[in-house]
């Protein structure tokens, strides 16, 4: 899997003003790459991550995923890529509070090729990786912040994606839990997958071999 961003610009328009979130970004990532994007709030880190994850639409420039320009993809194909290629981790966990761990983790499976009868086994397997297998039927509203983030990671990994996009994955966690969460992500990413992390806190997420990119006013510095 290869990511190529060429001249990517994203401008948010409102009635009275325009805000350039990402300005002329060029970036390439290949299998095994671990990239940490840092920068101040409003630097465009999350927007860039969302463009990579096909969440953000209406940008300028050329974004190719494995040689195919994402903009040309049909809605159905794009949804399939979001389901199979990407695993998303968000700062505020983004879990369905009313549901159990199982219900939350299986969301990506609902739209993929995995058979319904295999859902539980797949969820169990990934929960073992994040050491939450005993909580499979517990409501996420009854879990701690660290446990919730691990549920979110399990959801990101359940479809065995080749690209992990994590937006402030340790933002709401204490130091020890943050390290555990990062260990899980790095262990999964190994040498075959791409890991892109947006963070304020470089110290907590940095590991050996990870490349750091600094963004300022929507641009990549240096």
């Amino acid at each position: 899997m290869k990511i190529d961003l060429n001249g990517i610009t994203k401008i948010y328009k409102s009635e009275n003003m325009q805000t350039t979130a990402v300005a002329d970004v060029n970036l390439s990532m290949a299998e095994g790459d671990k990239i940490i994007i840092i920068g101040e709030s409003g630097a465009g880190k999350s927007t860039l991550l969302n463009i990579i994850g096909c969440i953000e639409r209406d940008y300028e420039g050329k974004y190719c995923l494995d040689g195919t320009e994402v903009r040309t993809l049909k809605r159905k194909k794009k949804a399939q890529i979001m389901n199979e290629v990407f695993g998303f981790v968000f700062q505020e966990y983004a879990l369905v509070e009313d549901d159990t761990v199982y219900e939350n983790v299986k969301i990506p499976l609902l739209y993929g090729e995995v058979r319904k009868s295999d859902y539980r086994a797949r969820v169990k397997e990934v929960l073992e990786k994040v050491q939450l297998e005993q909580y499979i039927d517990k409501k996420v509203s009854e879990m701690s912040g660290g446990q919730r983030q691990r549920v979110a990671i399990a959801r990101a990994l359940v479809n065995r994606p080749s690209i992990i996009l994590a937006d402030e994955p340790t933002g709401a966690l204490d130091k020890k839990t943050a390290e555990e969460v990062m260990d899980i992500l790095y262990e999964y990413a190994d040498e075959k997958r791409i890991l892109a992390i947006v963070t304020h806190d470089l110290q907590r997420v940095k590991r050996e071999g990870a490349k750091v990119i600094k963004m300022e006013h929507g641009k990549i510095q240096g």
Partner: protein
Amino acid sequence: MLNDIWLGIKDIWNEKWLALCYILFFLNMMFIVVSTTDSLYREKMEIEQQKAQDYKKFETYVIGMQPEQPEEFLKNLSDIYQKNAFSYCHVQLQAKTIGALDTYIVFGDVPKKLFEKKLEKNVSILVGSGLAQIREITVNGKKYKVDSVIKGDTEFTTLDNATEFTDNKVFIIISEPQILEWVSPENYDVMYQLVKNTQILSKDKDRETQFLRNVNTGFLDVKKEKPKDTEEIAFILKFIDPFLVIILLSCMLCTTLILNGMIKKRIREFSLHLIHGALLTDIFIRVVTFFVVILLISTGIGIFLGIIQLEELWFYALLETGIILIFAGILTPKLKRQNYSLNLRDGGVI
């Protein structure tokens, strides 16, 4: 798709109070709509029927104890019913084996539409299907063979606006009546019934005048029946169709508002699914399932409680499809405009 349907059903459970409120709202609304429009439409139909009728009816009030000359009174009535007019009275005939029989004695020139069976004899006896075992009946000591068994209802049942079943009734139809042979001149109740139930062909004005002259004695006060469409009713009926449309539109609007609340609440979850590979179609199916199941439950309860009649189901199917389509029309562009990642951060705003 099955997953989407299942998620839609799960949403009902998660939003059970909203769903319950909606079901109650829907049933209430239907109850108001159905009862109001039903009675108004009946009124409208009655007026139209009245206008279209070939026969004139009369309002009859008892003002005295008895006619001055009862025999003359009945003889005059017999003359009236010879042509273009008829009437009937309701009596109980005593049968040895099965007790009292509900009997209608119909005198006169009976319109063909009232009884399907061709009436050729001067005295025809018809019985309802529940009395099919009766072969003959005796009236005033004279035996009459039963001519025919009525299958189903006849138009006769609507004559006095009573939608009674004809199953257990006997009809004696006398086409060239000599009422005195059938009715005692002392039976003032039957006389009153005959006058009250008289119908005269509208175009036969002379007969009408003659009838009114004969019956307006010290015993009865008889007037031509007033047309029902007074100004007030006419005003209401004029606006019944727009009224119905307004009610339906407000029903749809309320539905949209209530369920928009549900979408607002769940937009974060929908965004999450869209980020993980769901298509807008999946969300659409999910929301439509939510709607359809709630509407089906409401309709089911409505049928169970008798608010909704089975033959009116097409109307509800149409209404519910309308509601779903309107809502889908609102939902789809809203979902398309969403910033999914922002929804995950802020809890979602639609």
